């Protein structure tokens, strides 16, 4: 029993790390533009595919050190792709309506997904692992080196982001623009620069998550972004959208909820609710969170801006 719980905790931390990395991209973009960047999940997929292509080109499939290089290049490439998406599809629509950029984002998601399909093919591809192999046995729970690496990479990236946002000049600018773009521009901060930076970092982190995810499961398909993206977005809302620590907390929390619910629901309901309802747990959590605590766990106060009306019903 103890070993089982420990095992599930490890699994939850692995999945949670990936959700958290993706959720950061959603939350940062939303924090500044109040936009759900639907293209983000497709950039995650594109990241995994670029990682695969690089592994072939550089001949580093299966080497953890090569993986670092691949991860770095993919981060930059997808980061630049994210910046271009913002400039082409979102920037011209700023200030029109809230619906237009959202649908433009959906259009971009379709474009990126199909571009990935055209280049990578329709069939699932076998993914070479960039992660070290091997296992440790801890009190009967089996922890793979892959899981440890994923967790460490995620934690290091998140710590770096936290330092960047809170301790550097550029980070201050980003926070200023997120707070209030107009006021920030009065004190000489170019909001476009900050927004571009966000669209570089967010998708870059998502791309690394894509490589980790595909390395872990050993496959990459061009459609894998949608469900993962939805869950990562759930994680972002769970933690409080717009909040960076919230996205991290939400990611890990969702990892735990999903892993434990999937494992225990069939037992508790006598097999009535099976593991096939895995995806429903995430969505149900989302619905419940939005209904009872729309600002999320670490979100800021409930205001008009967060689109919640208090006196209804």
């Amino acid at each position, binding site marked *: 029993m103890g070993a089982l719980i420990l095992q599930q905790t490890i699994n939850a931390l692995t999945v949670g790390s990936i959700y958290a990395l993706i959720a950061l991209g959603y939350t940062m973009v*939303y924090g500044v533009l*109040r936009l*759900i960047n639907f293209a983000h999940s497709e950039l995650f997929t594109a990241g995994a595919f670029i990682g695969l292509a690089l592994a072939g080109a550089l001949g580093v499939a299966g080497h953890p050190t090569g993986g670092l290089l691949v991860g770095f290049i993919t981060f930059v490439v997808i980061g630049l792709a994210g910046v271009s998406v913002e400039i*082409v*599809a979102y920037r*011209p*629509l700023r200030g*029109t*309506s*809230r*619906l*237009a950029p*959202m*649908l*433009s984002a*959906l*259009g*971009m*998601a*379709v*474009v990126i*997904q*199909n*571009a990935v*399909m*055209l280049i990578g093919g329709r069939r699932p591809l076998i993914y070479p692992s960039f992660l070290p192999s091997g296992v440790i046995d801890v009190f009967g729970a089996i922890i793979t080196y892959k899981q440890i690496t994923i967790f460490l990479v995620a934690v290091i990236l998140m710590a770096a982001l936290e330092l960047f946002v809170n301790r550097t000049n550029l980070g201050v600018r980003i926070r200023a623009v997120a707070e209030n773009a107009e006021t920030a521009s009065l004190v000489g901060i170019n909001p476009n620069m900050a927004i571009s930076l966000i669209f570089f970092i967010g998708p870059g982190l998502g791309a690394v998550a894509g490589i980790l995810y595909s390395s872990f499961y050993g496959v990459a398909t061009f459609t894998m972004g*949608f469900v993962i993206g*939805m869950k990562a*977005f759930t994680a972002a*809302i769970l933690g409080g959208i717009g909040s960076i620590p919230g996205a991290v907390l939400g990611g890990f929390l969702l990892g735990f909820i999903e892993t434990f619910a999937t494992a225990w629901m069939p037992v508790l309901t006598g097999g009535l609710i*099976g593991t*096939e*309802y895995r*995806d*429903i747990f995430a*969505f*149900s959590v*989302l*619905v419940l969170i*939005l*209904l009872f605590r*729309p600002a999320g766990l670490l979100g800021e106060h409930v205001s008009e801006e967060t*689109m*919640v*009306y208090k006196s*209804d*019903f």
Partner: protein
Amino acid sequence: MENPARRASTPPTAATRKLWPGALALLAVPVLLLIVGPHLPAYPLRILDMILLYAILGLGLNIIVGYAGLLDLGYVAFYAIGAYSWALLASGQFDIHLPFALVLLIGASLAGIAGILLGIPVLRLRGDYLAIVTLGFGEIIRVLMNNLDGVTNGPQGIARIDEAHLFGWTLSTPDDFLYLLVAMLAVVFLFVWRIQESALGTALSAVREDQDAARGCGINTTRVKLVAFAFSAFIGGACGVVFAAMQRFVSPESFTFWESLVIVLVIVVGGLGNPFGALLGATLLILLPELLRAYADYRLLFYGMALVIIILARPRGLIARQFGPSWLMRRLGGGKC
């Protein structure tokens, strides 16, 4: 954005205005469809049927998105409820064979009830949150249909659905459905247009523009939004029943997030809150992939690009909100506008 109060105060000059030119213009489209439609070859006729179906869906969704200003990304759930109503109540699945007209009512009502049940908790949310919750609802319905094997047959779907009979008239070929869909479109169009012009429509646009101000004017915003949700879901459910009767096969495949998205795009590309916009949008969005069929694998890529370009060029849609049927009636009827 137009001022809702202004629209409510226009009618007094109507006496000096003739109604028939506008009415004729509005009637021209369905009459033309009924004359030309049946002579079309099977393939274009089927596309025409799909355009009409999506136009009706667009008109339905417009009540929530266009009039009330609430983004619903899970509209396909109501469509699915309607489709599965026909599939379960008129097939060998449980050996129930109810008549089409009855199931049309049942399916639409079930969808309407689902709309209200979803609406009660969800309508406290606005904007993006509402969009995400409705998206989640759509996915939950789809996953349920995928997994409730005993009821819905899971991913295999339900085949060998009954042929539909409506008052002794058999609906089997695409031109039978053309007549049905044109009739439905006419009814839904009139209904949606009259809603827009009614006190409810005015209340909805007040809610859309400023909810607090609307409440300040004594509008029960919650009830108004619930009614919009129910009407919208009802129309979606009716479309689902017709869809299932047309395909005579349903599976969860047909009710993905992508479908919801297409319906939202129909009204956004055509022009939010404008019944004509839904017609134009449906025509474009169904025709475009067919025209791009020659590009095979590149089809969706171009489709996505076209969407982004249309939205960038016309963020408020191809036909602006004010150029709706009422505008046409005024325009053609003479007198002061």
